[in-house]
């Protein structure tokens, strides 16, 4: 479609817009904003979703990343349930199920529960989070390969904070 134009084709191409709009409806997007060089397509739909408005109203101070990049923090993360993370396709993050102190190893001498490259399964213990003197072993609740450890040993973590990035199987 865009072969005729280096700009990525005619942005005013109705068919393409229709396709985008259908996508928006299907996936309940509230806004689409595409630009390339001088070209730009921006579509917003219905009323904004709860996350976006605040970010819009407070572009500078908002701790959340811009709406275009999905924010793991804002993703509902009940318990250690792994949640989709869009910035690296095919990967998910294991988020903290509670406030507490993150321990990557059972004790200072022993090796980490998991290291980058290691394969994990639903019941693999990936870390301990200590809260109120209780040491909670956190299971992976997903299976795949650890590609990144996102929290530092003995770092304070809060609810929903990403701890590990995992390349999911299959």
């Amino acid at each position, binding site marked *: 479609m865009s072969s005729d134009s280096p700009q990525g084709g005619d942005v005013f191409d109705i068919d393409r817009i229709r396709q985008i709009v259908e996508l928006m409806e299907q996936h309940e997007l509230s806004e689409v904003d595409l630009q390339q060089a001088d070209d730009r397509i921006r579509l917003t739909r219905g*009323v904004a979703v*709860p996350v976006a408005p*605040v970010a819009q109203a*407070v572009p500078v101070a908002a701790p*959340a990343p811009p709406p275009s990049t999905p924010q793991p923090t*804002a993703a509902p993360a009940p318990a250690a349930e792994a949640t989709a993370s869009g910035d690296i396709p095919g990967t998910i993050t294991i988020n903290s199920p509670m406030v507490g102190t993150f321990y990557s190893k059972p004790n200072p001498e022993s090796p980490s529960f998991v290291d980058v490259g290691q394969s994990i399964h639903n019941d693999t213990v990936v870390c301990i989070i200590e*809260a109120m003197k209780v040491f909670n072993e956190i299971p992976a609740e997903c299976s795949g390969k650890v590609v990144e450890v996102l929290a530092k040993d003995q770092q304070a973590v809060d*609810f*929903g904070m990403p701890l590990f990035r995992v390349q999911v199987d299959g």
Partner: protein
Amino acid sequence: MFKRVLIANRGEIALRVIRACREMGIESVAVFSEADRESMHVRLADRALCVGPPRGTDSYLKVDQIIAAAEVADVDAIHPGYGFLAENAQFNEACRSSGFEFIGPSPTAMEQLGDKNTARSMAIKQQVPVVPGSDGLIADFDRAGDVAAEIGFPVLIKATAGGGGKGMRVAETPDVLKSQLEAARNEAMAAFGNGGVYLEKFVQQPRHIEVQVIADSHGNVCHLFERDCSVQRRHQKLVEEAPSPDLPPEARDAICQAAVRMIAGASYVGAGTVEFIVDKNYDFYFIEVNARIQVEHPVSELVTGVDLIQEQIRVAAGEPLSFKQGDLVCDGVAIECRINAEDAARNFQPCPGKIQSMFAPGGLGVRFDSHATTGYVVPPYYDSMIGKLIVHRPTRDLAIATMKRALNELQIDGIRTTVPFHHWILNDPAFLDGSVDTKYVDRVFSPDVLG
């Protein structure tokens, strides 16, 4: 003095405590649910920790998560605000046993005053007038009949564990006493898992007058005069003012002194409110003690110039109050209107959603305490209050004129609020001559009265 304080709350009260901390040079630590990630209390605190998903029971009411947050943030004390865990003695105890000062009274004082029966006996012990009624619970119907006959109909049946009107019934005549008694028992059992009820004289067309008190650990107990909260809809306060527009000086002195006796007798440290009902003859009866800071505390702050939250923190840290009773005068008139995200025209149903644009009122005599701003999304999970509009002027007429002006100036587009209700009540003859009782709004208000 504390170095760091955690605020176990959200919304405007979290903001209010952060303000007090900042002015005292104390670091503030906010906790928040995922629904409040962008909220102003998270932005303005020195640090913020997410404690769970949106639902209050999964976040702001999760004692272990709040305590864990206090641990990782290494705070010295925890301020509970109002609502949520503010009057939860177990949480109070958990804070202290985990090594954090709880900014409020001791768990014991909280428990004693929290139980209506115990509180009533304490009142009687302090010569604080109580509503005539059954001393203690009503075990069987015969006892109920005797007591009712003795104090005279109509009688009020109340749940000992009750609150906010739940488990409350009026028996106008002897023949309905039994049925109403059962109804109250069942309602109380369902609501609080405690079917204990008691009887008392039903005071008709009462005014709700409460006294703000605060006590330190050095034996000082002071009152900050009274608040009149008679403008209520279904037991929910909507407008509060200080001083009461309809209370003779002697009555005011007597009621304030009674409140001080009540608190002095409870080995109580911290801020609290002693609630009374007052009848047409200005006879007043003790109702309950709220062992926390209240939504309407700003009206007392404005007429006295005292920062109640700072004093709460001060006394919790073991310091004496920064003032003596003799230093306080009730200067001018303060009125507060609660701005709730509710549609007054549709039975005050909550209206969560996005505030498309908002302009906060300013000018002489206007105070607006709110966490809301343009783009803020009112979440559906919590109470619907989005701000408190408070005015302070030398006279009540000026205060009312300023409040009307400020209500007109407050512009919130995108959601419905209680502003239309306030425009109505502020122009209502009964409100203007200060004769509103706690049932007035329920009797008189209907959506048609709104412009």
